[in-house]
């Protein structure tokens, strides 16, 4: 899919009903930010590049991933513009695989000042909610 454009959306799957409910009302809060936070030590956040694509494949992948995570379900995505994903020292790296040609990573840059929670909050705040469509 080539380089990531600044105006491109990066789609982060949401598997928590609590986060989805909160995101429907607004994304600038800690509950939603948890969707952008991985376990300690992980510096890359998986996202997908679904802009302009038929989302059916993305929904099927989300549903599969939910089962793999033993999550209560796949609820939708938080879509963050690449330009915002690359703020505060973060980078966006396309990382397509054979299984998922749309995959990319947001690579976090931890400093003394800002850690995973702070990056998560910044990413959530810049994102918008996209509900899982029915298939």
């Amino acid at each position, binding site marked *: 899919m080539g380089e990531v454009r600044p105006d491109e959306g990066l789609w982060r799957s949401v598997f928590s009903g*609590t986060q989805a409910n909160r995101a429907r*009302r*607004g994304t*600038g809060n800690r*509950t939603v*930010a948890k969707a952008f936070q991985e376990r300690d030590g992980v510096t890359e956040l998986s996202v997908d590049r679904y802009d302009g694509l038929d989302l059916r494949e993305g929904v099927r992948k989300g549903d599969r991933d939910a089962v793999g995570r033993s999550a209560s379900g796949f609820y939708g995505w938080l879509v963050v513009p690449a330009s915002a994903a690359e703020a505060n020292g973060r980078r966006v790296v396309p990382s397509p695989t054979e299984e998922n040609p749309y995959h990319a990573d947001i690579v976090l840059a931890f400093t003394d000042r800002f850690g995973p929670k702070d990056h998560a*909050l*910044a990413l959530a705040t810049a994102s918008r909610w996209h509900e899982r469509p029915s298939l």
Partner: protein
Amino acid sequence: MSDHAYSAAELTEPRAIRPPTDPAKAADVAFDYDVDIGDNVPLRLSYYAVRVEPRIPSKWLRFHSRNLVRRKTARWTVDAYPQGSLALAAIVATEAPTLAESLALLDRVGELALEEGLDAPHEVASSTARKLLSDMHRVLPGLYDVCPEEGGGVTLSAPSARGTAFTVECDASGAVECVVVLPARMRKATYSDAQDLPDGFIREALEAVSPLAR
């Protein structure tokens, strides 16, 4: 103390109108306004009022209808006014969700912690959050999100305009960490205790993210 909090913001520039001078010819005055109050709206109800210059008795101006905040047009009926033109501006007065509603969320944060497999909120973190929630609600009324953290911490998220956020994390030791996210910048302040809070940083942050300030 009232359980409700009200705030107001002017949504439009004053606009000159010329109401009818014939009492038989009341006129509808419609305002189109463009306001983006964000998704994270701390508002439950809103009422439109008008700022009228020069001041006139209210009998010459009456609400045509009360509108919900998301509508783009507010409409009033202006009755005959013998002195010529007026300037009107739309003002939204908002009834914010109650402080009690936010405190109820704080009371239920233990259930959320259980759902997420986290430790129950520590008593120190909860009491710090309770104090700060009440204090911050006086500065920026609205519904505060409450979220459990690892280690028994509690994070409060202020109501905020789209593209902004302000969180206050209270930990089990009594320490407090505040993060404000504004378009293209992020700031943080840490405190060993909440004794002197809310301080200037918190007040400024609340004003900066306020949905009604933008």
